[in-house]
């Protein structure tokens, strides 16, 4: 990774195991040394299934390097919570964006792109493009 200021990636799932595993998968596939910062925000703080605004905000702050943060989400309340936090205006770092992308494929595309030093718009486009790859 050439630039010091990489786009951060936050992965929000209803399950801590899913968010953590997808982060590991993306890091493994982005490979080749350092990757852009990625953080998992899965489940509730007590380890249950659900969405935690607290974990999402902490994850976004953790990966924020000043170049923007791309947030990828799985289902229902994860989508709604991130949208509600963005509407708050001051909960998430400046330049945080909810990315409309498939969770696993989008996470890999986003991290590979961010690790190559791309800006937030390019990261978002790469993640969203994962929708275009049909499997059957």
């Amino acid at each position, binding site marked *: 990774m050439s630039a010091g200021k990489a786009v951060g990636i936050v992965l929000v799932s209803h399950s801590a195991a899913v968010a953590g595993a997808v982060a590991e998968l993306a890091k493994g596939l982005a490979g080749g040394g350092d990757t852009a910062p990625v953080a998992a925000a899965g489940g509730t703080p007590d380890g249950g*299934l659900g*969405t*935690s605004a607290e974990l999402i905000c902490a994850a976004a702050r953790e990966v924020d390097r000043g170049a923007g943060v791309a947030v990828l989400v799985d289902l229902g*309340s994860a989508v*709604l*919570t991130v949208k*509600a936090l963005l509407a*708050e205006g001051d909960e998430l770092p400046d330049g945080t964006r909810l990315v409309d992308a498939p969770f696993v494929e989008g996470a890999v595309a986003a991290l590979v792109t961010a690790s190559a030093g791309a800006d937030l718009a390019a990261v978002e486009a790469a993640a969203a493009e994962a929708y275009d790859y049909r499997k059957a």
Partner: protein
Amino acid sequence: MLDAALFRRWMYAMAAAVDREAGRLTELDSAIGDADHGSNLQRGFAAVAAVLEKEEPATPGGVLTLAGRQLISTVGGASGPLYGTLLRRTGKELGDAASVSREELASALGTGVGAVAQLGGAQAGDKTMLDALLPAVEALGSSFGAARDAADAGALATVPLQARKGRASYLGERSVGHQDPGATSAALLVGALAEVAG
């Protein structure tokens, strides 16, 4: 006129109602959802009651924006951002006024309900909380009791509907015949208002 003290009593009454009805909400949610609506709202409104005790906001708008923010940060399900957005947007709309009229609340609540519809991408008839809230806002122009009755009727009217939003939508036609838990809790919120202000 409705002041901050009344709005706090509204939130306390909602916390009590959610406590009382948590079992029923979860039962409704176990039919078509993931069986956590009662416990999620219980946790959320208990946190709302606690923060209102501590911070004592001085205006109706302050009470609702604080309550909404608390719901977004403490509820681990979709009801957190949805109810949080409802109360926050309504609170912001009420602004800094020390007290508001029923008509002003009806108008602000209409804005809040619009924000919920936008957040969830739902409309009337989708078998969501909107089916209780939309008729309640309209009836609130007449009286608190009318709003409560309209919300109750709206919640009941979700029984024959097919869910088009949220987890229940995956069930398709199997969601028909069950009352929507979100519309039911929304009716509790309007009922709590009628209880303290009616």
